[in-house]
């Protein structure tokens, strides 16, 4: 096991720069998730750690060693690919043993490690099968088994769950997390799914257009988003964002509605800003702002309601059951201790 340091790493294809100087420190044994929309450079960064892409600038260290010019096979890492990349002409056992066979490891050691990995992942009965005889979840497990057998310094996962159906994805999420808690191997995991990131990571790195927007523990990112991008990206349903101006008595939206807000720097008065309120931080209050109900989605444990207030749609999540019909008015107010303000021009948190 080892730590991974990414220092001012850049990547360019010809004159097109796709990663603009990224710094990430990953501690030994940490589970780090790179998350961001398509094309943000997260997969490229992972492939640079793996050695499948050249590093245009900066430095990547695995443990104490700078690996910029170290070929992939000498980096002591294992990767799980999005399409699993299992060798179709080899059995499950051969797939898992391939790297050790190449290293000419003794047969007894290969057998021992393969059967150990198989028992961790529940693959004992499938060892003689070929990949095409397996289901998606089983293939996924074999791909992980292939990584475990290597006993590498770092695990790399490249969107490993995106080819699975929703139910299996939730199950595999738990399995991967459990596996990490058991093996404690440093893990870098790429996904575009912020729920995967929130549920699995020790540390989330939110990337966008080749830069790191914010880095931190899942709930830190949720509670204190550093900018508008992170605020909108993390959380489902996503945060309500209202454009307007900060006033002494609250936040005036473009629709002329005054929202109560919590403490904010007094020098920010009359500044153009964006108010962010998470759906679950809107509460029913007879003295609150009137809002017209647009859509009601009862989910049992909670009710998701889309309301229109000052010409803008907001999503609310209430623990109470709502009797109002679409078209009727309800009264809502935000929990002012957890509202967020962002600068309208820079998107930075105020």
């Amino acid at each position: 096991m080892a730590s991974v340091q990414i220092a001012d790493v850049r990547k360019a294809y010809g004159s097109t720069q796709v990663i603009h100087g990224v710094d990430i420190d990953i501690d030994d044994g940490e589970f780090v998730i790179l998350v961001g929309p398509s094309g943000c450079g997260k997969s490229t960064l992972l492939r640079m750690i793996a050695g499948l892409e050249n590093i245009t600038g900066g430095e990547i260290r695995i443990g104490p060693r700078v690996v910029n010019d170290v070929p992939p096979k000498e980096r002591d890492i294992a990767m799980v690919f999005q399409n699993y990349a299992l060798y179709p002409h080899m059995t499950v056992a051969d797939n898992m043993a391939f790297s050790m066979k190449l290293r000419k490891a003794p047969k007894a050691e290969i057998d021992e490690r393969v059967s150990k990995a198989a028992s961790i992942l529940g693959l004992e009965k499938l060892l003689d099968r070929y990949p095409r005889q397996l289901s998606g979840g089983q293939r996924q497990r074999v791909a992980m088994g292939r990584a475990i057998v290597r006993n590498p310094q770092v695990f790399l996962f490249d969107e490993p769950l995106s080819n699975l159906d929703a139910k299996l994805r939730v199950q595999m999420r738990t399995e991967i997390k459990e596996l990490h808690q058991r093996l404690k191997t440093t893990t870098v995991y790429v996904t575009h799914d912020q729920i995967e990131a929130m549920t699995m990571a020790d540390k989330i790195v939110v990337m966008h257009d080749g830069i790191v927007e914010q880095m931190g523990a899942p709930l830190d990112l949720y509670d204190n988003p550093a900018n508008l991008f992170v605020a909108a990206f993390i959380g489902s349903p996503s945060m309500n964002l209202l454009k307007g101006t900060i006033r002494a008595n609250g936040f005036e939206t473009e629709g002329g509605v005054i929202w109560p807000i919590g403490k904010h720097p007094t020098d920010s008065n009359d500044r153009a800003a964006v108010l962010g309120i998470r759906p679950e931080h809107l509460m029913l209050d007879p003295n609150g702002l009137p809002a017209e109900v647009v859509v009601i989605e009862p989910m049992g444990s909670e009710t998701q309601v889309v309301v229109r207030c000052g010409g803008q749609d907001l999503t609310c999540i209430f623990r109470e059951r709502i009797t109002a019909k679409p078209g009727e008015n309800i009264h809502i107010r935000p929990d002012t201790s957890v509202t967020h303000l962002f600068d309208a021009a820079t998107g930075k948190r105020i």
Partner: protein
Amino acid sequence: MTIAAEARAGHQFSHGWLTRLFDYKPFLVFICLLPALGLLLVFLSYPLGLGVWLAFTDTRIGRAGYFIGFENFQSLWHDPVFITSVWNTLLYTGVATVGKFALGLWLALLLNNHLPFKSLLRALILVPWIVPTVLSAIAFWWIYDPQFSIISYILVDVLGWRDTYIDFLGAPWPARFSLIAANIWRGIPFVAISLLAGLQTISPALYEAAMLDGANAWQRFRHVTLPMLMPILAVVLTFSVLFTFTDFQLVYAITRGGPINSTHLMATLAFQRGIPGGQLGEGAAIAVAMIPFLVMATLFSYFALARRKWQQGEDND
């Protein structure tokens, strides 16, 4: 009124009868297959059957023959020219196939990389294949000419490595290898393009996975490329063997089986004996003698292929 009703009923009956006939699947299958079957019978089965029949007769041009059993084959067994042609065919097929596959695979692997002008190069590779065989045969005839050969010119006059011009087609062994070289040149594009198509179906992620697993370039070729390419390799190999074994044009246009019958293949000898020689029965017997070899080659690759199919996954997602 009763007549009209009866007529209507009769009409309905005949309508229903035709409909039922055309709804009857075996009948429909038969009707749809009829045109293809007819063509196959007239242009494939009949000539093949006639050829096999002729092989057991003493037919000559201008004289209907009598059934003579295996006499043609018995006399061929003791015919040194025929025996030579069998060995020539095996040598020609064996060496040319190995050459075509070695060079074709190498070319396919090269073209599978990112090269400048890749599509232009791929198109150029096909040229030897699309040129009419006789045309390329004439070109090779010039290349192998005892007096005007460009190879001899380069070796003797430009490089000075030899004192005399090479007599490519005048002696048996040089002539055989000259023909093999021409056949390899012609056959490479087919192999290269087919294998290139096979190479492109291999997911790049497999190579990346192998790279991370610690495989070097040779090991990636040995453990990923080759097994994944096996099914298509077997098909292309079968076709290539069949085409080479039955080759006629190249040999007939360049050497006509000479010098002194030393480069005859079975196909050219069959034609030589049957048409210019007039011995239709004997020519047919030589052609029929090729069939066991071809069946064996087909069966071999069929079974090789069947085994691979079991191993090969359809998709890997």
